[in-house]
């Protein structure tokens, strides 16, 4: 395909200003540097950043970029762990942060209509006043935009019971590279126009189109919740509890696990009195109607956990105790910074029953490559976030980290898992994607991309090359 000649930078900026207004176009070396990174270690430089404030502005920008051969990289808060928002060659960043209106909240019909720049936390905060919430809450929910959440199909600690972002999007409006606007789906599950276009857009990382509005499903906050915290000698024991809880017919909202290394870094950071010799820590949370069933479930869980001979087991009875249970988990990721300046967070996911093997595999990888690897896991989903600690400035060590990453992915795939449970592929894991999928499946992905964006203008080179 012939690429149109690069437009002069001034013409580009002028055109963008004409469309979006001077306030909403940013250029300059300092600002462009700030849009060059995300939560990964990758980097790129865009030609300009534009903040459209309406669907029409998005259409105009897309039309201009199509005509002049400029690529479009979408971006929300830039908290993704996959390099999905890293600028590519000859691109502008289209940032949704200023399209942040909540257009409608319809509590009685369990739906809200929002723009992509709304921050997940802002919806939660607004809905909480009415006793409602939007279930998916990725760890970055205080920062990340809904546009980003949908683009990456974010998960979070509640997935095991409540599912992921995909399950809570009723419909959306999006603009494709041909400049056309489509509203697909509606305010319920039944309004997709034949193909479930909303679903394929969820988690497409902006490669199919730029999303401009969402209808999201909202729910009343469950009447009651119980939080428990267990410390075990070995991660395997925690895995046994997880399996037994599920086998007992209980679907907890949360099953969060941390290993010894993270328990120790968290203890370094908080001094909360976590047992430093514990091999694993598990946070268990159940919720539901308030008719006493939860107490029965807590009883069952207590028995199940006792079977695995935990070092400690606590049932939180006050809000402060619940908070204390979560403290270590909240600081977990950052607390490793006290050990090493850089970390690489993986997102491998294995079938729940392979949990012990996956832990063993991570420990082995840590030995093989002589790297500290801490383990965080959404244990109910088999979703691991191994944190590989290193120093970015140490070239040789960084090389080893890359090898360890590939080894972890291979281990997960060998166990019948996937390389990404909730972070997405972006640029970071793109080279490894063909390890997970056969050429036929990769071809099917390309079919979809071609159907939406045959000119490859929207977030090109992400996930796979067309």
């Amino acid at each position, binding site marked *: 395909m012939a690429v149109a000649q690069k437009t002069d930078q001034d013409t580009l900026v002028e055109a963008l200003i004409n469309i979006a207004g001077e306030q909403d176009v940013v250029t300059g070396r300092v600002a462009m540097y700030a849009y060059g990174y995300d939560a990964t270690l990758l980097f790129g430089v865009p030609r300009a950043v534009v903040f459209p404030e309406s669907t029409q502005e998005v259409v105009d920008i897309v039309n201009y970029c199509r005509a002049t051969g400029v690529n479009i990289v979408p971006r929300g808060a830039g908290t993704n762990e996959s390099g999905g928002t890293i600028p590519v060659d000859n691109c502008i960043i289209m940032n949704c942060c200023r399209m942040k209106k909540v257009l409608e909240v319809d509590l009685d019909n369990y739906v809200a209509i929002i723009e992509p720049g709304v921050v997940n936390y802002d919806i939660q905060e607004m809905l909480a006043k009415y006793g409602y919430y939007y279930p998916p809450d990725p760890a970055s929910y205080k920062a990340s935009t809904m546009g980003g959440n949908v683009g990456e199909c974010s998960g979070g600690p509640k997935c095991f019971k409540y599912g992921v972002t995909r399950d809570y999007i009723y419909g959306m409006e999006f603009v494709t590279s041909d400049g056309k606007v489509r509203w697909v789906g509606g305010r319920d599950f039944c309004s997709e126009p034949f193909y479930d276009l909303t679903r394929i857009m969820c988690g497409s990382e902006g490669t199919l189109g730029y999303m401009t509005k969402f209808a999201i499903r909202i729910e009343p906050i469950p009447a009651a919740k119980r939080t428990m915290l267990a410390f075990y000698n070995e991660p395997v024991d925690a895995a046994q509890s997880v399996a037994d809880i599920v086998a007992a017919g209980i679907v907890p909202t949360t099953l969060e696990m941390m290993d010894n290394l993270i328990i120790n870094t968290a203890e370094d950071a908080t001094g909360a009195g976590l047992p430093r010799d514990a091999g694993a820590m598990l946070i268990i949370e159940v919720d539901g109607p308030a008719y006493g069933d939860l107490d029965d479930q807590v009883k069952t869980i207590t028995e199940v956990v006792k079977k695995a001979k935990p070092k400690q087991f606590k049932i939180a009875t006050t809000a402060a105790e619940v908070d204390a249970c979560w403290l270590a988990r909240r600081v977990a990721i950052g607390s490793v910074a006290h050990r090493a300046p850089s*970390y690489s967070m993986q997102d491998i996911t294995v079938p729940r029953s392979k949990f012990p093997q996956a832990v063993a595999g991570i420990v082995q990888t840590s030995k093989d490559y002589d790297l500290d690897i801490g383990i965080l896991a959404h244990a109910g989903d088999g979703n691991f976030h191994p944190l590989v600690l290193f120093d970015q*400035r140490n070239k040789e060590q960084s090389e080893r980290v890359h090898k360890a990453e590939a080894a972890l992915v291979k281990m997960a795939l060998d166990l019948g898992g996937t390389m990404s449970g909730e972070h997405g592929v972006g640029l970071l894991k793109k080279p490894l994607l063909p390890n997970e999928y056969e050429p036929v499946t990769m071809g099917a992905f390309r079919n979809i991309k071609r159907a939406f964006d045959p000119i490859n203008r929207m977030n090109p080179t992400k996930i796979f090359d067309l």
Partner: protein
Amino acid sequence: MGDILAEIYEKLNTCGRCGFCHGACKTYKKDGAEFFVARGRVQLIKALADGKIEDDHDYENVINSCLLCGECAIACPSGVKTHELVLAARRDYKLKKGIRPFLKSLILSSMTKPGRLKFVFNFFDGFGKNAMRRLDGMQFFRGIDMYTMPSSNNPFVAQVPEVVSVSAPKKRVAFFVGCFMNYAFVSSAHSVVKVLTKAGCEVTVPRDQPCCGLPQYVYGDFEAARAQAKKVIATFGKYDTVVTACGSCASMLKKEMVELFHDDPSYLPTVKAFAAKVFEFSELVSTLGIEDKLHSDSPQIVTYHDPCHLVRYLKVTDEPRKLLKSVPRLQYNEMFEANRCCGAAGLVMAFYQELSTKITADKAANIIGSGAETVATSCPACMLKINSGLKLKGSKVPVKHVADVLAEALRD
């Protein structure tokens, strides 16, 4: 790479770019610009250290627009204290380029010279304020309500005797008034004296009231800040107890001043000894047992705003609330996000007024949402900014110092 940036480089490198600070950073919330968020500031300071960007005007805006409120440090899972790193970057910038623009430079230097400072506040009170009042639509100048901005020709120190004595004093305290109170919030300063004397303290108001040095310190002019610190200690060092009712001054005198001299072993002990006897107003008063002296005939609903310097720098949060709650018939309503910055942040409110005004609007909405009839706080800068924010929203909720609320409940 400058020496200062080299010193903090490890800390800059600790930022994992996770972006969790986006939810905490008020300057980011305004329009979602990555270069106005803690992560952006840290990455750009690092980029400067790495020689990847120039310290141009854009860069200056990046570091100078920070509120130094410290909220990002609490949100940061990696424990990066961006406000400290920004401070270092400002210091680095000052050493390389001096302080610009002209007006900021004028204000900072004028604060160290009482005569000129008087001029600055008088400008608002005299011709400037009147001229602006006459112009339609100029009630709000840079987000500050000109009509109701208090300013006095006659500073507080000129209105009170040097020593306000009581019979059989429980304690002798020296009152560090602070520029804002001395020149603008005179009535609150009177309230402070009233509360302290009613509580049985003999209050000394030294004639010489130097600037605490915080404004110079936060824009990286450590030399001027050190000079101010020495002046303060020269005047106030001789008293056993020093009290200030300005959250920012309190933080400077108790905390930053010690950090300012961390590399001066000869003077550091003096500073430490001084810092140990400085108390923030509510900290001191809550130990004096004034609860049984408080009276009130009419019910009122009050909420409290935490100044950044108290909540995150000095960690004083319970004392002012406890004092307010001890007033009879006072219903205390906690507002949403009481501990978040009001947008004043020293000179940010003057030079990034649009940014600052939007942040204040959030604060004002939270105050109105709390249903309070009065909002109390412990810092005159917050008082000024919040008052403007409330007026802009058409609210009549008055902003008072905690001392004002207490003083009203203490009968003569």
